[in-house]
């Protein structure tokens, strides 16, 4: 492995550790905020009429946390994915970071102004994020399958 490739892989690894841990901090903080809304029994979150918002914000918190962990998982996996080309690694990294942004944001925005039985329009970001996640995970899975 050339030095430039090693540097590149190190840069991606560090990026995902950075994004993963900060993402974890962000989405765990969101979890604490949601617990606080519970604690103070705030109607905007707990009223039966706001059931959809509660669900979507919980999903935002859960997806954000899991996807942040996934960034760390990718960072940890990079040394073991030696066969993964630079381009593929870039693309995987790009897809997973986008998924981390789009999925929780889509759920969160969808919960701001939900309708009766449907999330708000912000939820349209979710399928886009899901597509990025699917591609990112697929690329990582293919690379993990390739023989060393």
């Amino acid at each position, binding site marked *: 492995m050339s030095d430039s490739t090693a540097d590149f892989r190190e840069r991606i690894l560090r990026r995902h550790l950075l994004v993963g841990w900060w993402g974890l901090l962000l989405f765990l903080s969101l979890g604490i905020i949601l617990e606080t809304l519970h604690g103070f029994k705030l109607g905007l979150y707990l009223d*039966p*009429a706001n*059931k959809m918002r509660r669900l979507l914000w919980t999903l935002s918190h859960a997806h954000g946390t899991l996807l942040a962990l996934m960034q760390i998982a990718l960072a940890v996996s990079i040394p073991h994915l030696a066969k993964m080309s630079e*381009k593929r690694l*870039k*693309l995987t990294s*790009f897809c997973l*970071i*986008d998924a981390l*942004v*789009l999925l929780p*944001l889509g759920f969160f*925005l969808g919960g701001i102004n939900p*309708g*009766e*039985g*449907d999330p708000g*329009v*912000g939820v*349209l*970001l979710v399928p*886009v994020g899901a597509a990025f996640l699917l591609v990112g995970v697929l690329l990582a899975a293919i690379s993990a399958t390739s023989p060393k």
Partner: protein
Amino acid sequence: MSPELWFALLLIVPAGLLLWQLPRIVGKARGTLLALTLTGVIGGGWWVWCRAHAPDSGTPADWSAVDPVPSETCAKCHDDHYQSWRRTYHRTMTRDATPEYVKGDFEDAKYDHLGFRTSMFRRDGEFQMDTMDPNWALMRAKEPQRPMPPPGVRRYQVKRLVGSHWMQECLYQDGVGAYHRLPVLYHIAEKRWIHNHGAFLAPESPDFWAKCRGVVWNETCLFCHNTRPVKNPQRDARGRTISYESSVNELGISCEACHGPGGDHVRLNQDPARRYSIRLTERGDPSIVHPARLPPARRDEICARCHGATVPRPEAWDRVRVNDPFIAGQELSRFNTLFHSEAERDYLLANKPEGPKPIKPASNDGRFWGDGTPLTTALEYNGMAMSACYENGRGKLSCLSCHQGHPHDPNFMLKPGMQSNEACYQCHQEYRAKLTEHTHHPADSSGSLCYNCHMPHQVFSLLATHRSHRIQRLSVADSRGTGKPHACNLCHLDKSLGWTQKELVAWSGGRTQAMTLTEEEAKWSSAVLHLMTSDARTRAIVAGAFAQQSALQASGAEWTGEFLATVLEHERYPAVRYLAHRGMRAAYGDEAVRGYDYLAGPPTRKQQLEQLRRDVFAAPIPAGRSYPYLPLTPQHRLDGAVIQQMLQKRHDPDVTINE
């Protein structure tokens, strides 16, 4: 916000991410191009997806052909509305007799009425009632002098229930699919079983089953107490009904009663694109009826179907299946005709009516006062439509001005705040600043609540009085010769109609002309005069006023006991006795006057009244307060001679209010 703006704002997020990252992967030029292409694909995809179904599409060409859906289906998307509807008494208007819905005591309960015992009990999970054999009851009623064997007892399985708020009627099913009322029902408000002679305003009958005979659920209750009813009578060769195969989409009043059939709405909205498309354009979904989006007249006709006095238009109904063709949102008059008196109803129902249509209610009309104001419930639309405020459905007033179909509180289904003057301030904002100037009562008194004067309790049903929905100005003329007690005198029970007229003329600054009243109207308390001389409809309303705390405060409670005891002594209608006794309870407390049963036999009631007179009403009326319009002796006792004179003038035709 417009849909386009929504999309543009949302698109910024993926566009930003793509433009940031793709040039780093595939080079600046190619990356930017790819990012823009992908952004276009995402944005275009959203746009096409949401435009795939124009929200204007989906209005059924023929609503009657749309499949119905059960209300549980609506809960999938409209859970909050479903839950608020579940709390209403609309839903439980008709139910099958299951433990969840039975209100009455069936734990081997006994109810004795005029020497006959009815038993309510459960056997093998069924609710059963042992009561008097209807044939025995009929024979006894026809020939009371004839020697009879002991009363026959017949066992009935309670299959269906009607009502869940004030009273609950028990129905049994016969062998030909008809449901019939049983003579003993549960009075929920009092938590007791009562004989149905005491549940409606009607004279007592010697026939134990009198109020059940001829009352077939499939013929009457079916149409207003259920959703999309079909009577479906089976007829013999001569056209006589021999059995029923009645059906409903749902027992009780469910979603589709107000929103129309939902089959298309459910099917079309399986598609999320359509839902978002409708949401973004905020135009509403044409595949379902939304009452709030209808013009007021159409909206109110949804309520009027059951809360208005209507008869079917024979040409518009299927005469074989007899199904109600009206669907929410349609013009009610296409299918039903509104009537304004029982005589007019009979005229409309007659096959070949003769002579001019009688609009004016007779003096014993069981639905309307002499001036056409409804006197019982289920006619609220008629009352509202008569109001100047309604402007014939072209103004702002509608049922939904004060009520809502999905209320927080199922009692009266009022919108929040509508039990205050805020209801009227919605249109009459100017009175907020000059309330006392208008009402001539202190701002915090019940006399300053708009609806106490303009929508007084002039309606009887379910052993209670209710607000009239005819919003009316105060006028003495409306209460003369119509049977309808004057609003002022339903609070000022100790004052005469003459006093009321004097006050109203003074308030108007002379703009109102005084009418010539009879000597008695000017001299005696209007409540006393009505309870002694008027028919049972008026007596019921006035007796009910004695239970209103605001009336007792305005009129003093100290004289009401002895007076109401006199009312009870001479009252032949059990419902009026119940209301008069309620008045006693309001003034003296439940415990003090507990020893009176309005449904007991005459000798027992006489004893009970004597006891009350001895124990509770023995003291004369205290001299502190002046009652110039009450017939009192110098000893501050009720003047029996005046009362007797009034009683001799009583106009007391048989009247029946079947609500």
